[in-house]
């Protein structure tokens, strides 16, 4: 009986192609790199870049012309924050500018002469802060940090004055701070940057390797002229041929995805508030969608190199529309429409919704449907790909 079953397997086109593909993969270092080494290596790099979570110890230069007890205390308070490090004490604003241009300082804090005197007299002292806002992220962080330091410092001074005037603590607080803001940071309580950068970058790398891997796998058949033999193995059914060919890739990419999720949830402490199953299902759909994009590209160009170039550009552009650098809802209408053209965007919707926000499952139906649409669209290109595969004109072409 087992023998009979083995025979049947051998006669099945799907298993013949599958077998052929596994041999191809195991006999080439390039496939090994594309499918396992590359993704893992890039995960490792990305993970380590953002290991700190939040930037810290940004260099700040201080110009202290007063050099009093109060100004020194202020400098110490700035230095004590996690974000800022007072790395330099320069003598003039000109020197501060120099060190900013040389890249040694990201901000210059200027404490003028007679600072202490004006504070004690209650005349309203002025402090200047110059921030290098070339990098918006660093500039914003430094600004909010130093503002917080100033507020703390200033409130302390006010509170003492108010209490010395004989007000009880509660009234004094009301006097110095009439309305307090009680901020609730949802879903990312530590305002961890790694959360939002890694969540876009790692899946993007998965997309990149999926797309390039699929183009390379199919494209090599065209370039080396082995496509007729490949189709023959699959009993001349393109569907069977593709299924058998791409199954190992789907499987290996899922292994990578599993590692990615392991890193995100276990190592980086990424939350998973919704349904694991929904994320995984959309992940599978996304991989299939990008493989179908590979089919479309190859069918249209019939050229492996061109498809690879287009494919890498296409997958990179998806980052723009992931909504993590700039929210899609804030983009112009045309860009919002464009975003729909990237399976990555739809996957991100599911992933952020389920992983971070714990949205109700109902919200995932629409993006999932879009992903499915991409997979379906691939089938429209089957006839054209069939012609490309059979046509010897396209073989051995550069």
């Amino acid at each position, binding site marked *: 009986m087992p023998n009979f079953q083995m025979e049947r397997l051998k006669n099945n086109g799907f298993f013949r192609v599958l077998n052929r593909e596994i041999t191809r993969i195991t006999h080439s270092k390039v496939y090994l790199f594309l499918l396992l080494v590359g993704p893992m290596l890039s995960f490792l790099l990305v993970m380590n870049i953002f290991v700190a979570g939040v930037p810290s110890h940004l260099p700040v230069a201080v110009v202290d012309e007063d050099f009093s007890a109060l100004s020194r205390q202020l400098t110490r308070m700035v230095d004590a924050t996690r974000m800022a490090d007072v790395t330099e004490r320069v003598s003039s604003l000109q020197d501060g500018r120099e060190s900013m241009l040389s890249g040694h300082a990201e901000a210059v804090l200027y404490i003028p002469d007679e600072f202490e005197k004006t504070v004690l007299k209650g005349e309203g002292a002025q402090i200047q802060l110059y921030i290098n806002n070339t990098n918006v992220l660093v500039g914003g962080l430094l600004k909010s940090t130093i503002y917080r330091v100033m507020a703390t410092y200033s409130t302390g001074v006010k509170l003492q004055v108010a209490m010395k005037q004989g007000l009880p603590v509660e*009234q004094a607080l009301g006097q110095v701070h009439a309305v307090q803001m009680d901020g609730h940071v949802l879903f990312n309580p530590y305002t961890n940057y790694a*959360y939002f950068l890694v969540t876009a970058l790692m899946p993007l790398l998965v997309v990149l390797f999926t797309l390039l891997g699929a183009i390379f796998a199919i494209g090599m058949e065209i370039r080396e002229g082995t496509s007729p033999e490949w189709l023959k193995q699959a009993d001349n059914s393109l569907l069977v041929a593709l299924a058998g060919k791409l199954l190992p890739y789907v499987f290996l990419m899922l292994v990578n995805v599993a590692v990615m999720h392991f890193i995100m949830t276990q190592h980086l402490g990424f939350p998973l508030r919704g349904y694991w199953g929904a994320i995984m299902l959309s992940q599978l759909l996304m991989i299939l969608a990008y493989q179908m994009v590979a089919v479309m590209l190859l069918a249209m160009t019939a050229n492996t190199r061109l498809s690879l*170039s287009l494919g890498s550009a296409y997958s990179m552009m998806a980052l723009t529309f992931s909504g993590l650098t700039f929210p899609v809802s804030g983009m112009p209408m045309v860009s919002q429409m464009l975003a729909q053209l990237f399976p990555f965007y739809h996957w991100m919707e599911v992933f952020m919704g389920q992983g971070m926000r714990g949205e109700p499952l109902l919200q995932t139906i629409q993006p999932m449907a879009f992903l499915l649409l991409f997979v379906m669209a691939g089938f429209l290109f089957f006839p054209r790909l069939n012609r490309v595969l059979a046509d010897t004109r396209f073989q051995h072409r550069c």
Partner: protein
Amino acid sequence: MVDATEEMKVTQSVGSLVAAEQLFFEGQVGGVLLIPAGFEKKVMSGQQASVSVYSDAGYFLVYKQTLTGAMQSIGTFSGGVEVRRLMAKGATPEQAVEKRDPIALNSVMLFNPAGGYNSFIIPGLIMVILQQTLLIGIGLLGGTDKERGRFRFAVPQTLTKGGVIPVVVGKAGAYFVLYTVNIVITQLWVYHWFNLPDKATLLPALALMVPFLLAVIFLGMALSTFFSRREHSILFVVFLSPIALFLSGLSWPASAIPQWLHGAAHVLPSTVMVPAWLRVRTMGAELHHVGDAFCFLTLQAMVYFVLAVGLYWWVGKGKKGRKGRKGKGGRASRVDGIIGQ
């Protein structure tokens, strides 16, 4: 007041936090402002009142905008209340303002005052794109040559001493000339289209750009000797692009990257180039401000030149030996024959 800020727009007023949560999940609102019961009473009786802001930090820009908007409007509101209370006690308006804010902090956001996203990301991005396309392009050419067995063609005089150097320099010259065109496009036209800040003077810009291009070209040529197929250069270089971007400290500050990784990233010319280029282009730094970067890039160009020459020589020699033994005929030897004549 919240509605009047640039960052936010009050679109809905709902009865409870639960209803607000519903709206939030439907994606209709990006943040929720909760004004608790008894707010006015507390303000009027001189106690400290509080307002809650719920913002979505899953999307960082949304979070930043809602928080900034809320902070500004609540701060202004609170300031108004405090000043009025002081004035009620008989202080003059000036005194009240000074008392409320004994230390004023004037912050000046330099070089990118509007916090524009364009001028923040594009200048550095262009550099990374130039580097990566150059690496891929040179790799493609090298791979194609190898595929056709033409790598010997690239190195015709390997056996004479120093014969590789003219070949490497000549090829690099061709790439260099081609990329000066790209530089004109990216550095002049793109800057013009996007209205990017440009404070650079010619000397420091050239001092950075020339060694940078040379370093990338020689690195690309050294790498191209490893690609045996044209497609390989795309496969091996593309995935590095987003990583190179972040390693350059463009959006993620370099001080937050682990030391060993940032050190290793110096293999790529962009790691040194991008921050130095931003200082020159966006901030208007002079030559002496970017002296370190210039020295490093020049050194890098020289090291990669030596590497490229060495690898070309090695590959040329190896090919010759193997060719002779295996006697792989066909196109390759035909080409060799033509060159020989």
